[in-house]
């Protein structure tokens, strides 16, 4: 295309032109361009006037109403300071703020857990011999809302602790802290129901969360233990909405109510399938708000899974220090789950817990009611 045609095309399609950048023979300009130029200038004036005259429009926030709502689950009674999960009637703050902020529960183990990554161990090495001290430190020093006591030592291939011994550990942790507890087994499908049964009995009246009921073990026994001693149950399915629905229905058939169940749809760590968890958690929460009664429970995330990712723990100089990588990997995993709809997080690192809670706490506030920084001059003000 020659310059002239190019220019004419520009004049046709635009509302203004730059006359001082316009280098062209004056004769040619007079001959061919003037009429177009006049038209363009006239048009530009018209457009400017039209733009100036555009009436201001009001902004309507795209708020939706939802037929369903998430049940509110209470954890902690008796000597515990209670914590509430769930209760959402909407997806986002601008529709309706969440009634309860997300909750973090610190992982504590009944044995010293040699496999814990160094950035965690260095915070807890002084208390790892004693689950009560460990729990106390998590609450006192790191502000845990709750504590999860994993009874790993009951595993037949670990220390094969008896259900009675597990119950003793539970009693010790209950003595040490006044926050609600999640009680986890060792993952052995045969033994976990027996262990949870005894632990539930030991924690009678304290309303703990028993973790977990799933389709691979005797979930009836777990449900019964919760019903007999007034606890809630963690209903765990493997990244599958239908499996989760089925299990929840089974648990409710045993007599548990929605207010007694927290779901764990499985947290795949960042980089190791987190997108599957995003999809399942998003679909579950949407289904609940749309009215699916089998999925109207709050959700939990085993955020600690993030530490299994090699990017979190593997020593590799070109990736930078694991001291920073680990917590960041955990927080991005937890955060992603939180934004997808998770209500309670099992976590390990103090920094991750702090930052996650800071964001989570804003979820209970009304839209545009916090003071926001003035960003208008950021281009010249930003320094680091």
């Amino acid at each position, binding site marked *: 295309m020659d310059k002239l045609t190019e220019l004419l095309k520009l004049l046709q399609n635009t509302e203004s032109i730059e006359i001082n950048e316009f280098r062209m023979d004056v004769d040619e300009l007079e001959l061919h361009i003037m009429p177009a130029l006049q038209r363009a200038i006239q048009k530009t004036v018209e457009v400017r006037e039209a733009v100036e005259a555009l009436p201001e429009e009001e902004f309507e926030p795209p708020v939706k109403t939802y037929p369903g709502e998430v049940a509110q689950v209470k954890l902690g009674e008796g000597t515990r300071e209670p914590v509430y999960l769930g209760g959402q009637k909407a997806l986002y703050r601008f529709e309706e703020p969440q009634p309860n902020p997300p909750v973090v529960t610190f992982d504590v183990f009944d044995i010293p857990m040699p496999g814990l990554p160094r950035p965690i161990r260095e915070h807890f090495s002084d208390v790892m011999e004693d689950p009560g001290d460990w729990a106390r430190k998590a609450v006192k020093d790191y502000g845990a809302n709750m504590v999860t006591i994993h009874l790993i030592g009951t595993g037949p291939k670990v220390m094969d602790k008896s259900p009675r011994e597990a119950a003793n550990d539970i009693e010790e942790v209950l003595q040490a802290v006044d926050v609600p507890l999640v009680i986890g087994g060792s993952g052995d499908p045969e033994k976990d129901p027996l262990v949870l049964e005894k632990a539930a009995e030991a924690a009678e009246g304290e309303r703990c969360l028993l973790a977990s009921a799933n389709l*691979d073990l005797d979930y009836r026994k777990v449900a019964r233990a919760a019903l007999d001693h007034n606890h809630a149950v963690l209903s765990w399915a493997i990244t599958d909405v239908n499996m989760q629905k089925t299990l929840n229905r089974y648990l409710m058939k045993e007599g548990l109510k929605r207010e007694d169940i927290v779901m764990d749809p499985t947290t795949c760590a960042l980089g190791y399938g987190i997108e599957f968890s995003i999809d399942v958690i998003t*679909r579950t929460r949407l289904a609940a708000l749309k009215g699916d009664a089998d999925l109207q429970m709050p959700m939990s995330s085993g955020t600690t899974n993030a530490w299994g990712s090699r990017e979190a723990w593997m020593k590799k100089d070109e990736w930078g220090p694991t001291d920073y990588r680990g917590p960041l990997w955990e927080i991005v995993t937890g955060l*992603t789950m939180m934004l997808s709809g998770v209500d309670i997080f099992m976590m390990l690192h103090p920094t991750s817990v702090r930052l996650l809670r800071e964001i989570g706490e804003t979820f209970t506030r009304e839209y545009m009611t916090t003071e*926001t920084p003035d960003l208008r001059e950021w281009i010249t003000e*930003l320094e680091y």
Partner: protein
Amino acid sequence: MQVTAMDVYRLLPKTNCGKCDESSCMAFATKLIEKELTLDDCPQLGENERQKLEDLLAPAVREITFGPEKNQVVVGGDEVLYRFELTYYNPTALVVDLPDDLPSEEIMKRASDIMNLKFERTGEELTLDAIALRNKSGSPEKFAEAAGALAELKFPVVLCTFDPEAMRAALEVLGDQKPLLYAATKDNLQEMADLSISYGCPLVLFSPGDLEEMKNLTRRLRAMGLTEIILDPGTFTGEGIGDTIDNFVMIRRLAVEERDEDFRFPIMGIPALSRLSGGDPVEDNIKEATVAATLMNRYADILILGGTDIWELMPILTLRQGLYTDPRKPQTVDPGIYEFGDVDENSPVILTTNFSLTYYTVEGDLKAGDVTAYLLVLDTEGRAVDVSLAGGQLTGTAVADLIKDSGIEDRVKDKVLIIPGLAAPASGEIEDDTGWKVLVGPRDSSGIPDYLEKLASE
């Protein structure tokens, strides 16, 4: 407001000619909606219908392109709110800030650091997309000088200034590389719009914390004839992050569900603003990554960051890689036997799953450790070891079938299978069903080279 296959079908020739390789025009309509085929695949389309179809099929969020011809960045193009409904298109562009008040050698050094940053994951090279040249100095000359230096690199640039004079000066040296202009505000709208039109560069509209103002300004830009717009509703961090999330969500919801023409544009977030208050550099990096991850999860199409430390960028790049995979296609590799090194009848046999993340991790470790071995890849429908174990894809019978179908039995002398540490609970079952001796390997594949060495010395 979603366009259906029926809406598309009505405008097609309805001849079922099959030249698009689909059995019917209805099937073609479905493929069009899913972006698996394009209008060019239909040879019988009339000009009139084509125009209508193009409008109908324009994505809910318009696609915007910037950067020099051979190195362009495309942002936007999304159709849905949730990735399980349909893939998110065009991964979030990651842009790194470069203030113009640095000495010129430092400008070039930082630019080359940004251009060369790489993080390899699962067979893919993850990189950054553009440089945000920021007129921190406030001087048009300095800005133009830095822009001129960057022009040599032919790398995509976002020019950041609210001063039209500085913008014009930078465009005089960089204007032919289609930089993204940041930003128009209510105070400089006309001047920035004029520059955007005369240089043919897309324009960001900055309207912090006020969507009503944003809507009215977008309407004015559109009335001036601008179509290439990106929206920055302000990135409030700290206590304000909830408001930022709300604004991002409202914009995207209006685009996708209401097809509100004033909001059908990509969204920009600036996690670097978490550094405005200034603090400990490590804490700042962690906070910035946190904001970036938050906004990427909630529809950010382009982000400006301040950090270039790899440990900060790794989780952001990894999250992006995951978010933008196609949820309809499991990320898998073909099951079967894979050979590493010079294998013979004495080489060990290792089992893994066909989840591509798992496979590429194992592959990387075997190669890095110079291992000679057969790798048996089990079809777990793209699930990782622990997930497929729990989900019932990794079972004794499945492994027995794999051993039989792959013919590995004819290729090795001893029937010994090394299974992943995470599959240990299934070791007995695998042994029973396959008749092979099963050894439980390390939990993480990085331990395989050491494990094999130890095994060989025993």
